[in-house]
Each structure stands twice: as structure tokens, then as C-alpha cells.
């Protein structure tokens, strides 16, 4: 799994690719979000457009990232879900928990 971070209009966008699974994938996501929050970033957008697989550990890591950012008074949103990830979030009832976007520009504008 790879994670590249860029900033657009005050929003930190994390472009994720590969698999978010138990082990390396989950750790990279966790470390990336913690690093961003630790530096005071409160507007985080996870771009999952190139994430083709996620397991329960990866789902748990997304939830953990969401609550970590929220507990710091920030917002974590998801962008560009693949069908597999979308279906998983639907099955686990997390689709309504996350703020899910499918357009980057609109997603950036949606932050308060």
C-alpha cells in the first residue's frame, strides 16, 4: 500500500493505492493520519480511488482514522470509493457514518 500526501486549499489529501489490510497497509494508513493530525491538520481527505482491496482490519483503520480526526475537532472524509470498498462500507453500515465524496473539487469545498 502506498500513501502520498498533498495539500489543496488547506485540505490534506492522502492518495492511497493498493490494499489496506492487516499488517503493512493498515499501519501505513494509521501512521499517515496520525502524522497529519499531530502536525495540526484538521481537514483530511482520503482518496481511495486506487484502493482495490480492504479487509476488516483496513475498515477498522478507516474508522479509527475517522474518530482520531474527529476527536481533534477535525473532519476526515473519503473520496472516490471503488465498488468493492463502497459495498463493504454499505454492508457494515459505515457508508452513512463517513462523509463520502466522488469529486475532489467539491470535496475540498465541502470543508468548513
Amino acid at each position: 500500500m502506498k500513501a502520498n500526501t498533498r495539500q489543496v486549499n488547506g485540505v490534506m489529501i492522502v492518495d492511497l493505492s493498493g490494499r489496506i489490510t492487516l499488517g503493512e497497509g493498515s499501519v501505513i494508513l494509521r501512521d499517515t493520519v496520525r502524522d497529519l493530525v499531530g502536525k495540526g491538520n484538521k481537514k483530511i481527505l482520503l482518496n481511495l480511488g486506487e484502493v482495490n482491496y480492504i479487509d476488516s482490519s483496513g475498515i477498522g483503520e478507516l474508522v479509527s482514522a475517522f474518530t482520531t480526526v474527529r476527536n481533534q475537532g477535525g473532519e476526515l472524509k473519503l473520496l472516490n470509493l471503488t465498488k468493492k470498498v463502497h459495498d463493504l462500507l454499505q454492508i457494515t453500515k459505515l457508508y452513512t457514518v463517513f462523509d463520502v465524496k466522488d469529486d475532489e473539487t467539491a470535496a475540498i469545498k465541502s470543508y468548513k
Partner: protein
Amino acid sequence: MVGKRVTLTLDSTLDSVNSAEESATRFAAGAGFDEDEIARISMAVREATINAVLHGNAYDPAKKVGFQLERTRDSMVITITDQGQGLDPNKIPDPLAPENLLKQSGRGIFLIRAFMDEVQIRQLHPGTELKLIKHVPGAAGDNKEASQ
């Protein structure tokens, strides 16, 4: 394919999780499942193996994970055993309950049940056996194969 069986003994490691997933993917493809069903089976096997390695055997190098793939006349049957403390199916929290929705873990068994046709959980004292069953669509073709 009918009657084919693969039996492995795996170490309690993350590599075993990946190996089990890859074996199940190949086996499911050979059993004639379509791409979506193969993905569901593979994920269920991944989750079941994670349970065995992580929650059952707790990465203990002295404890092994039993892994078996079998193609019966109408189904693919995956059996995964661990040597851990045991899993009581009646005590598995519902991950969809509002109080559990934002918990980091606890979705593995739920996903296995969502992706397979039948899931049987048996306590082994010590350990747990998970039997995952996916019916092969149009298994009538198997009768033809079996009669040849």
C-alpha cells in the same frame, strides 16, 4: 474438480493469512465461481484465517492453523482450525449495533457470514473450527462431470 481436496498446516503468521487467501482464490477459480464470488470467498477465507492466527493462536509459533479446501458435489467447503482459547459464537457482538459501529475491530465473523452461504462455528476444546460453505451455482454440471 469434484472431490478435490487441499489440506495445509500453517504457522500462526501474517504470511499464512496471505497464503490461505491466495490458495482459496485459485481453488475458487478452479471450482467455476465468477469473479465477484471468488472475491467474496477469498475475503471470507482471509478473515477466518486472521481470526485463527490473531485472535485464536495469538501469533504463538507453537500453535498451528489447520486449513482445508474441498470441492464437494455442490459446494466449496473451507475448514479453518486454530488451537486458541475458543470462540463462543453466542458472544460475538453485533458490529452493526449503534454502540459498536465505530469500534475498530469485531467485523470479521460478520463479513464471513455476509460473504458465504453457510458458516459453522465449532468449539474444539481447545481451539475453534470454522467451516465456510459456498454453493456452486448450477451444480447440476457437477453431476455430469461425476458421471463421466
